[in-house]
C-alpha cells in the first residue's frame, strides 16, 4: 500500500475536505493506484537536474507603484454568500 486510509484522512484535513466513510474507502483505493503509477519516476536518476517551473525564461513582471481604481465595494460583495453591505460575514472564529 502506498497510502493508508489514515493518511488520506490527514490529507483531507489539510485540504479542508470532509470525506464520508464510503468516499474515504474509494479515494484511498484510487489514490493508491495513482501513487503507485507515478512511482515510475523513480526509474530516472534526476540528481543534479534543475527543476522546471516555467517552460521558458521570463523576467519578473514589475510595474510602477501607482494608484489605480479597483473593484467597487458593492461589486466585490455582490457574489458573497453572506455579507452585511460592508464586509463578508463568516461564523465566529473566536
Amino acid at each position, binding site marked *: 500500500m502506498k497510502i493508508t486510509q489514515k493518511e488520506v484522512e490527514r490529507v483531507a484535513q489539510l485540504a479542508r475536505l470532509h470525506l464520508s466513510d464510503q468516499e474515504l474507502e474509494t*479515494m484511498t483505493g484510487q489514490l493508491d493506484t495513482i501513487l503507485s*503509477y*507515478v512511482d515510475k519516476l523513480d526509474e530516472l536518476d534526476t540528481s543534479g537536474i534543475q527543476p522546471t517551473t516555467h517552460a521558458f525564461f521570463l523576467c519578473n513582471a514589475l510595474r510602477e507603484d501607482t494608484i489605480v481604481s479597483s473593484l467597487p465595494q458593492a461589486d466585490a460583495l455582490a457574489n458573497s454568500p453572506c455579507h452585511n453591505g460592508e464586509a463578508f460575514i463568516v461564523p465566529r472564529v473566536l
Partner: protein
Amino acid sequence: MKPYELTIAQAREQLASGGLTSRELTQSCLDRVAAVDGKIKAFLTVTSEQALEQADEADRLRTRGAVAPLCGIPLSVKDLICTKGITTTCGSRMLENFVPPYDATVIQRLKDQGVVILGKVAMDEFAMGSSSENCAFQVPENPWKSGFVSGGSSGGSAASVAALECPASLGSDTGGSIRQPASLCGVVGMKPTYGLVSRYGLVAFASSLDQIGPLTRVVSDCALLMDGICGYDPLDSTSVQRPPAPLMAALTEGVRGMRVGVPKEYFGAGLDPEVQAVVNRGIEALKDAGATIIDISLPYTDYCVAVYYLIATAEASSNLARYDGVGYGFRAPKADSLLEMYRETRSLGFGPEVKRRILIGTYALSAGYYDAYYKKASQVRTLILEDFKRAFGLCDILISPVVPTPAWKIGEMADDPLSVYLSDILTISANLAGIPGMSVPGGFSRQGLPIGIQLQGPHFREDVLIRAGYTLERGLNLPPQRPPMD
C-alpha cells in the same frame, strides 16, 4: 447555405458585401441552438438578448466604416472564462451562481473587435477531465454519434462548433483540453504557446500549464481567431511581450522544405489502428506537398502522465484553496464554526474528480513528500523539455495522433480514473513544455467517429502549425464537416 453553416471566413465575406447582417447570422445561430442543443447539451447559458444587442452594435459599426476581421461573428465561450454579468460556473456547483464583475482579457479584446457572444458552454468541473462527464450540470454529447462523449474538458466548445451551433468557440487547454475534444468532434483546436494568450479572467486550474485557445471548423478560422486573442497583457504576469505576427499571413505558405518529425513514442501500444491509419494519411499528405519526413524520438514521453498528474494536481490544490465559501461561490448552509464551514462548503461544492485531484496535489506538496513527488516531477519536466529542444533541432514540426482512440461511450470509462489519465498521454507533454499544439480533422473511423491529427511546434511557432494544418486540410480533402444529426 444557411447562415449558421458558414465558417468565419465565409460569414466575413457576406457581412462585408452586405449580403448578410450580424443580426441575421446571430439569429440563425441562436435558432440552431434552440433546435439542436436539447440533444447536444453544449450550452449551459444562452445569452440571446445580449447577443442580438452585440450583433446590432456590430452592424452599426460596419455601416460607419472599416471594422476588425471578427466584427459581428458569434461564438461560444467555455464556462471558465469570466464574462462580466454572465454566470460563469466552471462546470461546478461551487460556482453555480457566480456572476463575474469583470471580463477576462480575451473577452474584452473580442468585444472591442465587435465579436458576439452567444453563451457559455459545458465542460468538466474546473477543467478536470477528458470527456466532460465531470460537468456538474449536463454532459455534452458528440454530434457525430448519439451517446458518445464529446471529449474534454472543452467538450461543450467542441460539440457546439461541430453541431454548427456557432462557427467558433474559446476553450482552455491544461493537458489537452482543447486538442482532445477537437479531435473527438472533428473540429480544429489550437493550444497556443504558454504566455501568448492572456490568462487574466481564466479560472485557474494549473497555472503553469493553462492556456486559452480557439476551436473552429477550419484552419483559416483558427488563424483568424488566434490573431484576435493573442497579445501582451499587463494583467497576466506570465504574458509574453512580442511583436505581433499575424497567423493569417502564414496560412497559404505551404510546407515545401518543411522537416516533419514523426515521434515513434506516440505510435506505441494502445494506439487504435484506425487512428494510426488516419495519421499515416496525414504524413503522406504533407510529404506530397513537399515536406521531408524524419523519424524522431522523445524518450521521456512515457513519464509525461506521471509528471503531469503530480504537477497539475499540486497547482490545482493550491489554486482551489480559494473556494472557501467567503468572498464568492457556494457556502454550505449549516456550519457552526469557520473550520466546519470551510470543510462542508468544499465537500458539498466540489465533485469527486476535483476532490481526488486536490487530495493528490495536497499529498504531493505535504511535508515529507514534496521532494519525492513535486520536486521529482519538476526535474523530469526539465528532461521532457530537453526532449523537445533536441527534436526541434532536427525538425520544424511534429506530427502524431491526438488521442489513442476515437470517442467512447458516455459512462464507459467513468469508474477508472487512472485509465482516463492515461488517455491524455499524447497531449500533456505540450503543456509541460509550454509549446503550441494543434488538432486538425484527419478522417473518420468505420463507426463514423472523427479522428484528429496532432501538430506540435517550437515555442511561438504557431505559424508553422497553421501552414501544416492548412496543407493537411487541403491534402486530405475531407467531405464537408456536417454531422449526421439533422
